[in-house]
């Protein structure tokens, strides 16, 4: 089952990316009776990010058991395979073509696959040092949490002994426990925001582990010739601070892994970094769906699993249900810098049932007040909001579905 020979020339649904969302979707498609479901995974093993998250808690909702990441990933793969999902590993999709045609590269060369529907579930990765504009030298020892986790959990190797963690999201805290696994001792957590990005309840963990926090720092700069030697920054009180260290963990600021998408004919939302979808998860080419973390925010595995299942049902409904023909669609527009993105980015106005009932809103900066929607300058809806970036914010969608105008809906915060 885990190989890349015997790749078919056509299939009903091809899923690009065998992480949590992709496997959940494939599994649900089979449960709903769809044949010829193919998962294309570029890594050696399917399972996605949980494969190198050697910690709890995974799987409570899906399996009613508390699992570590790698066990959860394995269970997802087994469940899908048992139901007849064909999982092809070390199989890289290299281009997306109109109407569900894929270019693929495997060890044995190039191939093509024609699918009735393609699902993009390529997930997220962390922003690199350059994407965060961290200046300084370019020595060895600067890696993301994801790379650290695969080194520690998949290969059992250590890139450094006393790193500094850049960032303070949940994954930054998880980096501490990853480090501990091989006796690596982080010497500081450095954050450019005034306070930690993760919820405050996790902050005592730093004290517990003896990792000092430097929040509100400016202009962090990496120093080192061959290997990292220090990190320098201006601290919250304006003093130049230099911390000796042999590595930098660049953590968080997850971005959709959208390379394929950006090189394709599909429209990308610059705000979310993922594809433009409607409430059914359908991209601007209706042969393409998208689900999971590729849609924007970095959500939990459990969320991705549920989204995968829901998207699968929408695909089944579309493939086996009545045709609804072409319908009008409404675009969502953002006219406020405080809003980073809304997902979905458009609505298809049709009789088709089963779409999302809520939209996700991502903030660009902390906001307190009302999120308001306008059509042609007229307010049609408003809802209270009090949140920060990187938090899950859900808003009802049904009000926009009743609209009879096809003018864009504009969102702002007041």
């Amino acid at each position, binding site marked *: 089952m885990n190989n890349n020979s015997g790749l078919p020339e056509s299939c009903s649904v091809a899923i690009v990316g065998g992480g949590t969302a992709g496997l959940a979707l494939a599994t649900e498609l089979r449960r709903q009776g769809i044949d010829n479901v193919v998962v294309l995974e*570029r*890594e050696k093993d399917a399972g996605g990010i949980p494969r190198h998250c050697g910690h709890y808690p995974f799987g409570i909702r899906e399996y009613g058991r508390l699992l570590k990441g790698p066990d959860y990933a394995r269970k997802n793969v087994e469940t899908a395979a048992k139901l007849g999902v064909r999982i092809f590993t*070390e199989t*890289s999709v*290299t281009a997306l073509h109109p109407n569900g045609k894929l270019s693929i*590269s*495997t*060890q*044995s*060369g*190039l191939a093509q696959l024609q699918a009735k529907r393609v699902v993009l579930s390529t997930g997220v*990765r*962390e922003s*690199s*040092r*350059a*994407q965060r*504009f*961290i*200046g*300084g*030298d*370019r020595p*060895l020892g600067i*890696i*993301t949490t*994801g*790379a650290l986790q*695969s*080194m520690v959990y*998949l*290969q059992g*190797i*250590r*890139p*450094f*002994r006393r790193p500094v963690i850049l960032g303070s999201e949940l994954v930054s805290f998880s980096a501490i426990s990853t480090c501990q696994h091989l006796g690596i001792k982080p010497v500081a957590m450095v954050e450019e925001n005034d306070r930690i990005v993760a919820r405050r309840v996790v902050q005592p963990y730093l004290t517990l582990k003896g990792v000092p926090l430097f929040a509100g720092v400016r*202009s962090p*700069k990496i*120093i080192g*010739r*061959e*290997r990292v030697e220090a990190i320098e920054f201006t601290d919250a009180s304006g003093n130049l601070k230099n911390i000796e260290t042999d590595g930098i963990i660049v953590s968080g600021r997850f*971005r959709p*892994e959208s*390379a394929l998408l*950006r*090189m394709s004919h599909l429209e*990308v939302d*610059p705000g979310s*970094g993922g594809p433009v979808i409607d409430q059914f998860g359908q991209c601007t080419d209706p042969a393409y769906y998208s689900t999971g973390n590729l849609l924007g925010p970095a959500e939990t595995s459990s969320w991705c699993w549920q989204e995968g299942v829901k998207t699968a049902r929408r695909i089944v409904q579309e493939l086996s249900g009545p045709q609804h023909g072409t319908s009008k669609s409404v675009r969502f527009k953002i006219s406020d810098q405080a809003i980073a993105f809304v997902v979905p980015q458009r609505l298809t106005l049709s009789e088709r049932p089963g779409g999302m009932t809520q939209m996700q809103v991502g903030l660009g900066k902390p906001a307190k007040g009302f999120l308001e929607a306008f059509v042609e300058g007229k307010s049609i809806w408003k809802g209270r909001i009090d949140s920060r970036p990187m938090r899950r914010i859900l808003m009802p969608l049904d009000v926009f579905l009743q609209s009879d105008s096809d003018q864009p809906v504009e969102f702002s915060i007041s």
Partner: protein
Amino acid sequence: MDQYTANHSLRRKISELDYDVAIVGAGVVGCAMARRLTLDGAKVIVLEKASDVLDGASKGNSAILHTGFDAPPDSLEQACIARGYREFLEIFQDLGLPILKTGALVLAWSREQQEKLEALIDKANKNGVNNVRMLGKKEILKREPHLSNQLFDGFEVPGEGLVDPWTTAHAYLLQALANGAQLLRNTEVISGKFDGNTWRLETSQSDVRATHVINCAGLYGDLVNHRLIEESLFTVTPRKGQFVVFDKAASGLISSIILPVPTKTTKGVVVCRTVFGNVLVGPTAEDQDSKTDASTNADALKELVAKGIDIIPQLANCEVTTAYAGLRPATEFQDYQIRHFQDRNYISVGGIRSTGLSSSLGIASYVSELIACDSLQGSKIKNPVIPSPDRLSEYHQRDWQTADNGGIVCHCELVTRREIENVLQGPMAPATLQGLKRRTRVCMGRCQGFYCMAEVAKMTEGLFSSPIALANNE
């Protein structure tokens, strides 16, 4: 007898560490020099103080093959660029090197810049680049529809192109090595004595004897001159250039190389694709004393991004892949400083500021002619061995498109296991991750190692002087 052995048997007998020519420095100029002189029949040794070649000025540049249209007329620099450009076009196919003949557009974004265009076109004509042509705003926007409509007008230089800055230099040196040259890395020249016939160089490794010494030490050219001939021909003041690299998705936004019109207040930045399929914006120009500080600066990078967006507004929606800085070995002189000390069998090649990639073959031929007066003993190699270089251009066939490649290790740059293994077992195997990156592009992509760093660490275990992962007992 194969070609390689045949070439060797033609050589005159000399003892192990006796060479016709010792080249100090394995930057692009040293690599081209080694190739030229080896093919001319000389027994060549290249001495590089770093653990890998291309570790200094040649590490970071804009990867443009220039025609030399804007070089100072009648300068040595202009002559070497023009000659280097011609020679590259003669050999790139045989060496399997990529070039994207994109052409360049020199664009004016203000009245002040616009007034300078005519003089630049005159200069191009003086430099023998006769196919430059004025273009109106409309025509430019038709050709490059993603450019900002803030532009005035400009002219095209059809001959400018994009090359692979590392594979190109590697191929020069690999061809030298395949035809009998030697490379010593981690070998710093400490001092030297010329006895009237032969140089004896004291290095950080073993002593080397050579008839001629050519200083191609780039950023350290002034230092090497001090150590060997006790002359102060020039002082290198490194000029840092920072660059921002945009993700491959941006490559659809531009075809030509977009060059600025330099004015009194600003030199302007270049926006161009790379053969690897990215878009490059840079460089800055910052004079500094340090020969090693190639650090980037957050404010400068943000400014480059902003300038890129000024020129191509849609870059605002594109992701940055990485940023880097290069150091140009600028001196107090405008022109290249190539000096031949005939009585001491010494040539100093200095001040190859920012055009070395374009001019290196020309410089090598120029120097080869200087030495030819001193009559090298060997005879030209008739059918030189041609090594197969790394094929990394996104616009040409890559290994992942062929069978039995071992699977893709680096997903962003589509680097295969076979490519990595070939390089690690090759004739000029890298000793650092940086070196492996330059030869394969592994970890060079948008994820900067998020997906593949662990696998690469495993594959290179025990091979690097500075390993990615620490040993277990460390």
